[in-house]
């Protein structure tokens, strides 16, 4: 934990310092010279704009625009409505608010309009009607999607993982003596364990909720949590994945010396807890074209520590996510300038590319967002996001594994989602 927080004044002062630079004396001359040599553009758009501004018959234009909008809406509804693959409902964050789609992924409904400048993130399904949501001021809320009411569960903390029975949540708190982990009962908001001291990391570091939003980071037998951070005793390039024993508070290494400091290795736990899959990123030396964007997938047995490489040296994988039955792993494959969705069996065989888009979104160098790929409940398809790497919100898409049918889910953009 020990996360840095900046004030508005600090950010403003930083920009003031950058901008406190005299305008070079020749900039004005250069600008005016360039303008003098440049004709104005009275192209189609400008002429049309001019024409429209002068048009007497604006009513006709409005009628035509409305008709075009109606046709577009009918087409969009038909496309969204044609998807018949049921599964867990799609919950997503759009504009900082929490939305939930219907079982057919259509008809999204705003379930929590966050007040003021508060922004919700990391939605996690607790049960069919309740979502756990983190918010920007540090609060953790349980949101009832039937009544659209949000209940404050934790004033200030960071959700790490949801228990296998979904009744409790592991939350990290900052204390003067360091970060601690507490187990909170979702129904009552009460702490049900003695706090466990967390390892001291160089920031940024934390335990993770896992790309499925929680359950996959807490072992099915309830005895340990999957964690990651950076080993400050080695160097900034040393990523660390570990097992935190909830009974004793002891740390057991699963993988160390992972490249690279900022690149969280996206570790995920198999649904039965028998393995952990993670990414070992490339360094600039090993793969300059893929620096910080991709690496190899590895699997490690959390008990024996035995490791298995799932993808090859020259591969380009990030963001692994187990299928519900644990047999397959979906991941984002870097194809430059973006990613595509691929799958591979948990033993490293049967690798297959599902999309050919080159703009699938994958976690950035800081491991955000936490949800970027999600399997359907029956394992028949994968929901993912598409859009520029630096965009804050992206389109939600779905691909079926048999048939490889692509479909956009609704028309709203999202910063995160979960199923």
């Amino acid at each position, binding site marked *: 934990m*020990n996360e*840095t*927080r*900046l*004030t*508005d004044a*600090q*950010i*403003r002062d*930083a*920009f*003031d*310092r*950058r*901008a406190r*630079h005299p*305008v*070079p004396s020749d*900039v*004005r001359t*250069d*600008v*005016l010279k*360039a*303008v003098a040599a*440049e004709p*104005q*553009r*009275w*192209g189609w*758009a*400008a002429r049309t704009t001019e024409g429209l*501004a002068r048009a007497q018959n604006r009513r006709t234009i409005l009628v035509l625009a409305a008709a075009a909008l109606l046709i577009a809406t009918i087409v969009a509804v038909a496309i969204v409505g044609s998807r018949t693959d049921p599964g867990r409902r799609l919950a997503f964050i*759009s*504009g*900082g608010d929490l939305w939930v789609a219907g079982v057919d992924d259509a008809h999204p409904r705003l379930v929590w309009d966050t007040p003021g400048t508060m*922004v919700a993130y990391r939605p996690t399904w607790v049960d069919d009607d309740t979502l756990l949501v983190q918010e*920007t001021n540090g609060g953790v809320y349980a949101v009832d999607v039937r009544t659209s009411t949000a209940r404050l569960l934790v004033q200030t903390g960071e959700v790490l993982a949801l228990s296998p029975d979904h009744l409790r949540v592991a939350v990290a708190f900052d204390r003067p003596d360091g970060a601690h982990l507490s187990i909170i009962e979702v129904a009552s908001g009460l702490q049900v364990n003695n706090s466990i001291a967390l390892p*001291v990391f*160089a*920031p*940024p570091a934390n335990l993770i909720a896992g790309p499925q939003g929680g359950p996959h980071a807490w072992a099915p037998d309830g005895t340990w949590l999957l964690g990651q951070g950076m080993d*400050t005793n080695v*160097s*900034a*390039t040393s990523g660390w994945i570990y097992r935190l024993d909830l009974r004793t508070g002891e740390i057991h290494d699963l993988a160390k010396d992972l490249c*690279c*400091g*900022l690149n969280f290795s996206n570790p995920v736990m198999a649904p039965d807890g028998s393995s952990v899959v993670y990414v070992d990123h490339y360094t*600039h030396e090993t793969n300059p074209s893929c620096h*910080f964007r991709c690496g190899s997938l590895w699997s490690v047995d959390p008990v024996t520590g035995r490791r298995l490489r799932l993808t090859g040296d020259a591969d380009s994988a990030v963001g692994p996510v187990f299928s519900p039955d644990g047999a397959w792993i979906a991941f984002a494959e870097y194809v430059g300038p973006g990613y595509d969705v691929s799958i591979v069996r948990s033993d490293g065989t049967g690798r297959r590319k599902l999309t050919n888009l080159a703009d699938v979104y994958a976690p950035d*160098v*800081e491991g*955000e967002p936490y949800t970027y790929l999600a399997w359907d409940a029956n394992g028949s398809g994968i929901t993912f996001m598409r859009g520029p790497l*630096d*965009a*804050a*919100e992206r389109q939600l898409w779905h691909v079926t594994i048999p048939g490889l049918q692509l479909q956009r889910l609704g028309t709203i*953009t999202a*910063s995160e989602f979960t199923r």
Partner: protein
Amino acid sequence: VVTIAIATTRAEASLVERARTGDREAFERLVDGRLTATFRIAMAILGNEADARDATQEAFLRAWRDLPGLREADRFDGWFGRILVNACRSAVRGRRRRAVREISVGALPDGGEGFDPAGPTADTRAADAEVLDRALDRLSQADRTLLALHHFEELSLEAIGLQLGIPAKTVKSRLFSARRALERALEVERR
């Protein structure tokens, strides 16, 4: 804070109308009224003189070229703000083609003192400022632009949304993401 987001006055609107019909002298007066503010916001976003100079020149050039397409003269400021943001984006793209920035992989210092938002001592203030400046450089151009428009330009969420062509709600969530990214970058720079 110098701002280019001032409302277009009636006199300026008149200049815009004249420039729109090809009056270079009127456009020159518009340039004079906005040059300093434009360069400063470009500096805030881009962080170096060469790129800020390119973006400033490109913004005014595009504005001149495309002025005939501007329907309402009193919307000039918002319209020009959008052009400037795009010009900054282009400047960054050009810079990326010229150089690849490496993330430091140097050894960590002992200890792990945090950045103190409550107020650093006089001895550490200058060092903190430098670190924060480097952290800003680590951000994506999109994040830096958002933060600059909000914290330096002091634009409202709605005004930023108009400049970037996105809803105010989206601006809010993007601002949050950008701020988090800056805080993380700061943590990395402090190691």
